[in-house]
């Protein structure tokens, strides 16, 4: 493990404005008087993750895990504070999402890889690996609307896992597919993690899986970090709480 920090949260707060209706939200753009409720999904969070670390995130629903990961991915932005992220982030979040239903699986591979910033040569290089890993046979050349949700998830995992990430984010992704595919996914993550330069952020409710992959654990509650330490201590803290 090197000392280079790849993810840094500096007093980060993410506040969602909850308006009564979308009309109130529209009015709120022009006037500060429109009332709204505040929901701080992430509240004054600070931490650092170094290159090569594997961190498990624990917390109940609504603890702020997803918001935090979304901010690292760059999908959503903090209300206050600063976030620094170095390297290419691949997120195994909502695997079936972001596909075009009318295009074939193969077209979607090119489409998604390109959106992740890969050029044609790089896509050519990984396409076969993705097809092989997804292992959905002739469906690869069928439009995505004919896929089952399991097939979509397999394709989604295959693309993200083969896109050579610097930072890999896994959020409950392993709960999709059958047992065989789950095993395959775990092996793939282990393979990616064998490279010391890849950083892993892992969200799961399965404590054994977390222990398999991670050395560090962070426990979240109501948008704040309650505990940050080794994986065994974190699991103990989470279980006794």
């Amino acid at each position: 493990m090197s000392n280079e920090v790849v993810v840094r949260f500096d007093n980060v707060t993410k506040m969602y404005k909850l308006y009564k209706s979308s009309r109130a939200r529209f009015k709120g753009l022009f006037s500060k008087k429109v009332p709204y409720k505040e929901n701080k999904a992430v509240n004054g969070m600070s931490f650092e993750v170094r290159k090569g670390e594997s961190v498990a995130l624990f917390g109940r629903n609504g603890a702020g895990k997803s918001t935090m990961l979304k901010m690292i991915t760059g999908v959503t932005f903090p209300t206050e504070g600063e976030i620094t992220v170095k390297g290419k982030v691949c997120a195994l979040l909502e695997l079936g999402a972001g596909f075009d239903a009318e295009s074939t699986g193969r077209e979607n591979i090119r489409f998604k890889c390109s959106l992740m910033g890969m050029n044609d040569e790089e896509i050519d290089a990984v396409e076969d690996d993705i097809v092989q890993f997804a292992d959905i046979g002739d469906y690869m050349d069928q439009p995505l609307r004919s896929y089952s949700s399991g097939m979509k998830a397999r394709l989604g995992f295959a693309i993200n896992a083969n896109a050579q990430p610097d930072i890999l984010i896994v959020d409950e992704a392993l709960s999709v597919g059958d047992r065989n595919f789950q095993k395959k996914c775990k092996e793939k993550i282990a393979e990616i993690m064998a490279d010391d330069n890849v950083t892993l952020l892992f969200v799961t409710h399965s404590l054994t899986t977390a222990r398999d992959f991670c050395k560090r654990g962070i426990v979240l509650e109501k948008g704040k970090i309650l505990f940050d330490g080794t994986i065994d201590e974190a699991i103990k803290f989470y279980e006794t709480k």
Partner: protein
Amino acid sequence: MIESIKEIVRDHIQYKDQIKMLAKSDLIKTYRGAALGWSWAIIKPLITLFVFWFAFSVGLRSGKPVAGYSFFLWLVAGFLPWFFMQELITGGAACIRKYSPLVTKMKFPISIIPTYFNISHLYTHLALLVITIVLFAVSGHMPDIYLLQIPFYMLLMVAFFIVWALLAGMLSAISKDFQNLVNALSSAIFWMSGIIYNVEDIENTWIRVMLKFNPVTVISSGYRRAFIYKKWFWQDKVSLVCFSITFLIFLILALTVYKKLRKEIPDVL
């Protein structure tokens, strides 16, 4: 505001390959799945043209030839850019919503969406332009030097509608009410623009100038100047000045809204 411009330019340079790819995929998506496929790009405009030609020539009996061109050709020249603008007025307002997975599921700069959306429609427009030129040639009006100003008006059109799609797309993303408002105003914009009448024929100077603040008028008349009236764009300075003022106002609005909403849109879509 300078910061917003810098950010938008930087995103466009970084995503230039993706813009091409997304424009292509948007174009394919529009026409795939229908048995007649690509021919819809021509059938739809043809029906519109026929209906207007019928209403004015047969119904109202007012469709007289203009400057040596049949009334139908006169309609075609003005409607050619309108087909693009019509799609962009309502479609532009809906474009960010249409591609919301790009915004909510991955890291993707919002300002790219209006750009490739415009380029995708520009392909259809170019195809229709070629057909129009052929149609004029078949009718005995060979292409001449005045057609060289078509790219100029096309540039104005695309520039304005990228700005429009960014502004309207963001506002519609925040509130569907805005999108409905645009849909409701779409036909008003059509009848208040010089598409089915020549703005220069209006006697009241004030109304004439006011109409030129509407970019649809300037662009539609511009295409007619090239195809029918055979005049150069610099011969009508009022139109250019009016267009520039409107363009600047929309640009400033779009940048202001961008700065305010750019980080909020992923949370509300």
